């Protein structure tokens, strides 16, 4: 690894409609160190993923991917910077008008560098990895929620990225679905992929992550390992793990403000 490997957010601020989502936010995702971003719903966790992917631009601060600062890149330059990143969106974000096979092979078809038979072989291999080879000719509407997420993982894998982002990958899944996703994430990590997940599903976070970031009130209030997180004395973190009466009122006040 070079000195500039990894994804670095440095003092990033972002606001929308007069509401500050992130204030002087720092994050480091080093290759091989899997991280989870925690925080209550609506705190801006997904925004962090979108900022790193260049889907939205920060108001200030810098974001770099493997040494390339992306904040001022054009859309075509961003495409190159994103080459080593894939994302599994919360709802899967599969393309409705395409079959599962076309969804999985989408990036390879777009790049146009490989012949069709090679792309088909890769698609089958990736679908096999998530245990859904037989769905290749189905449309997303014919799949269950859990299957959609697994197809989204297969799609993320197709271009062999270094980093894979997961946006609430276990939301809405039954315990078996959650277990399947956890196992898939662990297998990806064994293959050398670095994962960055945003979630509030603590069992999954603890199962697949080495480090944790906690956001509260648009700021990073914790960055560390599991033991430090569990023993943290930071009030927001404590409330997150053991919500009580006071946290209910805080939550209601925040909702009213929003």
């Amino acid at each position, binding site marked *: 690894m070079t000195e500039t490997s990894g994804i670095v957010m440095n003092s990033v601020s972002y606001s929308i409609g007069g509401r500050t989502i992130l204030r002087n936010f720092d994050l480091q995702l080093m290759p091989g160190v899997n991280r989870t971003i925690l925080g209550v719903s609506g705190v801006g966790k997904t925004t962090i993923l979108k900022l790193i992917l260049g*889907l939205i631009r920060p108001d200030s601060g810098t974001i770099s991917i493997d040494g390339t600062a992306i904040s001022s890149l054009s*859309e075509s330059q961003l495409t190159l910077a994103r*080459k080593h990143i894939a994302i599994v*969106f919360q*709802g899967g974000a599969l393309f409705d008008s395409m079959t599962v096979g076309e969804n999985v092979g989408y990036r390879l078809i*777009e790049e146009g560098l490989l012949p069709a038979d090679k792309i088909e072989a890769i698609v089958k291999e990736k679908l096999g990895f998530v245990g859904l080879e037989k769905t290749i000719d189905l449309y997303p509407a014919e799949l269950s929620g859990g299957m959609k997420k697994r197809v989204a993982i297969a799609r993320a894998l197709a271009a062999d990225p270094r980093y894979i982002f997961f946006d609430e990958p276990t939301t809405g899944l039954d315990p078996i679905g959650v277990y399947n996703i956890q196992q898939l994430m662990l297998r990806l990590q064994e293959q050398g992929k670095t994962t960055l997940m945003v979630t509030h599903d603590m069992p999954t976070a603890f199962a697949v992550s080495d480090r944790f970031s906690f956001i509260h009130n648009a700021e990073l209030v914790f960055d560390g390992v599991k033991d430090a997180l569990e023993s943290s004395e930071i009030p927001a973190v404590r409330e997150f793990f053991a919500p009580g009466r006071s946290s209910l009122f805080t939550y209601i006040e925040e909702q009213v403000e929003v």
Partner: protein
Amino acid sequence: MPARYIEKQTLLFFSELQIIAALALKAIARIFSKPFYYREFVTQLDKIGVGSLFICSLTGLFTGMVMALQAIIQLKPFASTSYVGGMVAVTMIKELGPVLSSLMVAGRVGSAITAELGTMVVTEQVDAMRVEGTDIVKRLVTSRLKAMLIAMPLLAVVTDTVAILGGYIIASGYSISPLMYWKSLPQFMKLQDLGEALAKPVFFGFLIAMISCHVGLRVSGGAEGVGVAVKRTVVFASIFILVSDFFITKLFIAFR
């Protein structure tokens, strides 16, 4: 207070117009560059062109029939019913054909484009495409624009043709000789009028494609946002078609 409100709305309108113009420039610049997304283009051509054939034919048929009916009643006292065909033709080809078929397409296809793109935005499919390295303008906007630019003038021609046939049906019912009807068709027309008849639907198609794509790609607020966006597309596209029709007609008259 009203002055400030008008100022704010005017600024908002022009900023929106500026964004649509920028999107249009990007979409046009990508028409002849690879990849061409043939499948997307053919799908859109089918949805816009073939899918709108029936509604445009129906519009043309009844408009032509009512035009002929009105013309016969007005011309009968002057014993000039031989001009019915010409009147139907000139009105339909120069004005009503392009405008009515465009309004139908704005309602049927423009709304569908906005709903489709809006849903893609809301379900993060557009973000997913961007992450996968797709040029969103080229894939989603240019393919629809190209299909619209080809389908719209053809639909206008179909509307005009069916309208003239509809006029003929009514004229036959009023004992007007078929020969007189068909011979009178080119009576009030010049060759330039055919150019106008094709230029208008091309421009209206451009407006529908750009407005529907722009509004669809800027949807926010979930399912409710998609509904609001669809309404905006139909209203804006219809207004822009009617307003621009006046100015295009003025332009053609100036260069006559």
